[in-house]
């Protein structure tokens, strides 16, 4: 089933009467259960594309159908609701709340949702990333790899249709990065759609499909031939 369908997507930035075409007539679809890497050098427009796909930004022209619905006419508040219920975010710099426990960080999206049993849902999400033993730790007491796994648990907690991971291994050593990619692959194996944004080939090879963009154009859309399967560090996943 088609989850994401973009047609003729354009994004222009106007800065002091100078128009910059960041995205130029981009069209593609992503099906449910896919693991897609959006790849490109910095300045290629991949971040802008991710922001539009995750409802943080709007296209200048073009259509974006999410789960079959045209999202261009949705209000800001409805887009916020969609982000809450259907989208999970994993950022390069984790973006965890300081002076707050692991459990409370994971519960954050639930504050803005209609869901009940917050503790139970958050504990389940933390279990999925192997952090059940860190519930009451503060975010400054855990390692970088663990922080990113908390962020993944936070992305999972509202049971989203798709998880956007923006350079999730960018701030991590290779061992921790490997574990994070392993968790993402596991989630995908369980049927979760994942869209990875990266500029590294090594990272992108963990996905099943790569969309390459350059200067706002889609230059290639291909299946990954020799897919890297991440093997987790035994010590990190307890």
């Amino acid at each position, binding site marked *: 089933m088609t989850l994401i369908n973009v047609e003729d997507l354009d994004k222009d930035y106007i800065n002091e009467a100078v128009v910059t075409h960041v995205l130029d007539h981009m069209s593609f679809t992503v099906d449910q259960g896919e693991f897609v890497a959006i790849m490109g050098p910095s300045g290629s427009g991949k971040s802008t594309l991710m922001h539009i796909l995750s409802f943080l930004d709007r296209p200048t022209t073009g259509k974006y159908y999410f789960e079959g619905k045209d999202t261009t006419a949705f209000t800001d508040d409805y887009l916020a609701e969609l982000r809450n219920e259907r989208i999970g*975010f994993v950022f390069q710099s984790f973006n965890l709340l300081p002076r707050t426990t692991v459990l409370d960080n994971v519960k954050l999206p639930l*504050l803005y*949702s209609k869901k009940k049993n917050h503790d139970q849902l958050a504990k389940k999400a933390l279990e999925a990333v192997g952090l059940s033993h860190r519930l009451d730790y503060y975010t400054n007491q855990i390692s970088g790899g663990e922080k990113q796994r908390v962020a993944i648990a936070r992305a999972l907690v509202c049971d989203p249709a798709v998880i956007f991971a923006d350079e999730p291994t960018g701030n991590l050593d290779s061992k921790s990065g490997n574990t994070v990619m392993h968790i993402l692959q596991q989630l995908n194996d369980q049927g979760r759609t994942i869209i990875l944004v990266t500029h590294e080939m090594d990272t992108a090879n963990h996905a099943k499909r790569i969309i390459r963009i350059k200067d706002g154009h889609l230059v290639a859309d291909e299946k990954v031939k020799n897919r890297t399967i991440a093997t987790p560090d035994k010590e990190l996943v307890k």
Partner: protein
Amino acid sequence: MNIFSTFRLVLRTLLARKGRSFLTILGIVIGVAGVIIIIALGAGAQSLVLGQITKLGTNLLSVQPGKSNEKGPPSQIFGIVVTTLTTEDAQAMRDTGRVPHAVAVNALVRGTATVVWQNKNLDTTFVGSDAYYPQVVNISMREGRFFDQRESDGNANVVVLGSTVADELFGESGIDPIGQVIKAKSASASDAGGVPLRIIGVISPRGSAFFQNQDDQILLPLAIGQKQLLGIRYLQAVNVKVDSSEDVEPTRGDIKQLLNERHRIQKDVDADYTVRNLADAVSILSTITDALRLFLTAMAAIALLVGGIGILNIMMVTVAERTREIGLRKAVGAGNAAVRNQFLFEAGTLTLLGGIIGIIVGVVVAYLIALLMRKLGYDWSFVISPVSVVLAVGVSILTGVVFGLYPAFKAAKLNPIDALRYE
């Protein structure tokens, strides 16, 4: 996001920055405490003044020698001695044909004296009075009686003690003061050895009135006070009790007419006496209290304004500091309203806490002041009006919300993409 979870979130954020939160609300604390204290003091002073009106009676006129503004201070204060008010004037006022509404007319002199009993010395004030004193001033006798007209006219060597004087002279020995003889000496006394006086009564405690302890005085016959202690022939005051408050002003006119005739005065400006209404003195006091209260309320309002600006400032800093947090919250689904409410709640909670602490501080200080005033002998009541408390809480929350609005809207308007990238 419901109110309860917003509140919990806000509380956790504020507790994480205890020191800063406290300093932020200090201005509000001071402002609110000021409001509470001022309102409590105002109420206390008012009840004190009202209590004194009832104690002295509003139907009281006081004739004093010397011309002065009826609402200003008496001329004696400026050291002017006017000797034209006499016992005969007082006697003339008792003529019901001339002053029909006068119930009682009491002629007085005052001074300071040293009283001696056995080996005890005591400096106190004395009142030389005729027998009408108890009819003009509400007193009750603890023991004995007041001197009568025959005693006061005949210069009998008798004295009535205020309760403080009686306690200080006789309290230790346990001897009944009635029948004992004390000696009263004054600086201007003609008799260097002192005037011997037999105690015939002790007045029940009356407390202070207009900054004077009425229990720390002795009362003796007018002529003894005038001639033997002060060495004068004139009067220092004639107090007139009027039958009802409506008749106070007509009686003032009657007295003026009578005294103008007796003193051969053609025009009011030449008068050598002043007729005062005690209610006038009370209204002067209330004017002063009201002005003071208004002034202090303005000060409190300024403190609240400054406190509010402090809140505005710190909330701006908070929003800037937490830009990434705001971006994250928006990314995970917080709408503009949720972000706005969070920061509004934060400002409101800060100032509410400030208000509550301010109320506690204010009530404690007002209570301590009341204790102090009572120790000084005033009948001071400790009044905290619920209105002032509600007002203080309301104003403090309002201050937070008003000064928190701009930062909260600023936070709500942040673009999540920019906010997430903010360093």
